[in-house]
């Protein structure tokens, strides 16, 4: 990794208290071949005050999982089973419509990826903030605007200009910061960032990640970053969960997972990262393509086709996510047999 110093995790090492507790979550999408799972039996704890990174290729179900945290899976998908307990909110899966809406934005902030336009193009940022305030029954809208301006200033934006602008007048980096204002202005304590830096130029990426790190620390947030970019996770996250075909295949403290991946997929991802120092030819892309909903094998380990250490049992049995010593979890029949990927 280019930046090895990840001092963040020192802030709250090994906290037992989880702000979000996902249990046996299954999300299915209706297709021509019936309902197929995009997220299958996921168990995941997001420790309070920590940054958790969820990494995976497109189609791995990570974005679906992120939406499921807000019970916002879009049709034709739906949450089939499981629960998502959010501290101070309850199980969002069973929450009533109104309470759910209050939780979204109010308790859980969500930041879209920068390439997406998360703002109504026809309204200024300020007016949309007022809409947000009204939707959440904020009594003092002026105070809300003041807070938003404060946040803007904190993130290096000209507050008056930012709030008076339309989306098309904002650059990608500015949009992302405005997105964070929306997520935090109501004092949400859980922050979900979906690909927060994709499509940003390098400077903006660094800026946005810096801001995320700062607000996280200052506001004592519980943060989830969904990304396909291991570099982002390495720089920011305390914990790391790797997703493949709707399953969490490995989870643990970031530096531990990166240093010694237990799942061959994790190892493959890491090996695929080109290094700045050293021979670029040493980076080995993963062979094969990730499965989508319809190509996930119904039986056995979904990774076996691309797995360098696949065994016979992988053909028939989907490995469960089991805890291994050191507070890590992995779902692989070959665990402990030394994944010689490096």
């Amino acid at each position, binding site marked *: 990794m280019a930046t090895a110093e990840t001092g963040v995790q020192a802030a709250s090492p090994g906290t037992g208290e989880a702000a979000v507790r996902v249990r046996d979550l299954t999300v299915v999408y209706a297709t021509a071949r019936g309902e197929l799972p995009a997220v299958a039996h996921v168990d995941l704890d997001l420790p309070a005050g920590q940054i958790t990174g969820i990494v995976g290729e497109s189609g791995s179900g990570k974005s679906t999982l992120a939406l499921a945290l807000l019970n916002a899976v879009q049709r034709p998908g739906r949450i089939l089973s499981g629960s998502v307990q959010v501290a101070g909110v309850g199980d969002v899966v069973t929450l009533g419509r109104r309470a759910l809406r209050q939780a979204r934005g109010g308790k859980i902030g969500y930041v879209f990826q920068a390439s997406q336009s998360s703002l109504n193009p026809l309204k200024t940022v300020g007016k949309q903030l007022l*809409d947000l305030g009204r939707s959440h029954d904020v009594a003092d809208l002026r105070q809300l605007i003041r807070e938003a301006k404060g946040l803007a200033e904190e993130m290096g934006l000209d507050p008056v200009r930012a709030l008076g602008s339309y989306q098309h007048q904002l650059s990608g980096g500015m949009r992302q910061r405005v997105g964070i204002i929306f997520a935090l202005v109501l004092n949400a304590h859980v922050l979900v960032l979906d690909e927060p830096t994709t499509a940003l130029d390098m400077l903006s990426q660094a800026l946005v990640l810096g801001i995320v790190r700062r607000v996280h620390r200052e506001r004592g947030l519980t943060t989830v970053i969904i990304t396909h970019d291991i570099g982002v996770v390495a720089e920011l996250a305390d914990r790391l969960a790797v997703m493949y075909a709707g399953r969490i295949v490995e989870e643990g403290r970031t530096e531990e997972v990166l240093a010694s991946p237990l799942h061959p997929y994790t190892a493959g991802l890491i090996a695929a990262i080109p290094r700045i120092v050293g021979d670029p030819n040493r980076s080995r892309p993963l062979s094969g393509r990730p499965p989508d909903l319809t190509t996930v094998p119904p039986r056995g380990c979904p990774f076996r086709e691309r797995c360098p250490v696949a065994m016979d049992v992988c053909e028939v049995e989907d490995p469960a996510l089991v805890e291994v010593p050191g507070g890590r979890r992995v779902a692989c029949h070959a665990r402990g047999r030394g994944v010689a990927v490096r």
Partner: protein
Amino acid sequence: MSGLARRLASRIVVAVVMIWIVASFTFFLVRAIPGNPVQAEYETLVSQGVNPAQARAETQVIYGFLPHQPLATQYGHYLWQLLHLNLGKSISYTGTPVSHIVLSAAPYTVILVLSGIVASFAIGVIAGVLAAVRRSTRLGDVLSVSGSLLHGVPQFVMALLLAYLFTTEWAIFPFGAPYDASIPVGFSPAFIGSLVSHAILPVAAYALSSYGGWLLTMKSSVVSVLGDDFVLAAELRGIRPITRLRYIGRNAILPLFTILALSIGFMFGGSVFIEDIFDYPGLGQLLLQSINRRDYPLMSGAFLLITVAVIVANILADLLYGVIDPRVRKG
């Protein structure tokens, strides 16, 4: 707003050039028309029982309203008079100024076209939103099918059907006049009621024949906006459903404004059919009458006014678009 003003100014310049071209076109067209209107008027008078000598004398009075100068002089005079909103004098109305005739017919067409557009736009847009949001339900299907069916029916067919059903089969609505002449004109309930009841059928013909188009366009626009990220973003921010619907509606309606401009032209064009079929005394009927009577000054006046109405409506639609879409406003 200076962007808007600049936009308006450039549109007006373009509009003036267009009006000049259309005016010149009708000017030269009228002078290229074969056949002698005086002769036709004479024959008509004679077949109505006027004796030939008298008919000839009468047509001479009418003939007096036809110009005799060289073409270039006439053209210059015509343009100069046009600047003063003088469109010349009618033949079939013996010397009554054309501008007077067309301007008194214009309100009826404008009433019909505007009410038709407003009604079809409002109903079509609401139905389009419903059809999009409920697109997997029976209601959505019914709405979409109704849109496709009506969209395929030409204006004059719609007008014929309505005329057959509601003036003959079930003679529910009055027809043949813009209002009951025995009611004094004014802002009285009786007068307005009479005006409305006489306009219902033609307005319905306009509205029904364009409703399908609005519905289908709005539906596909809403569907595409529903897929936009900001809609999901608003949901994830816990924005109230009614506010979200406003967001969707306003964004989805935008592309319709570009079509609105074209549609206005189409509606004004359709006035020829609708006013003919319902005997409504607007510009369309005037245009047809002037052509049947070969009253060329009146014909060019009516055509010019229809064109100007469309151009003005286009500018208004364009400005409206500018007001609604901030991206255009600044750009």
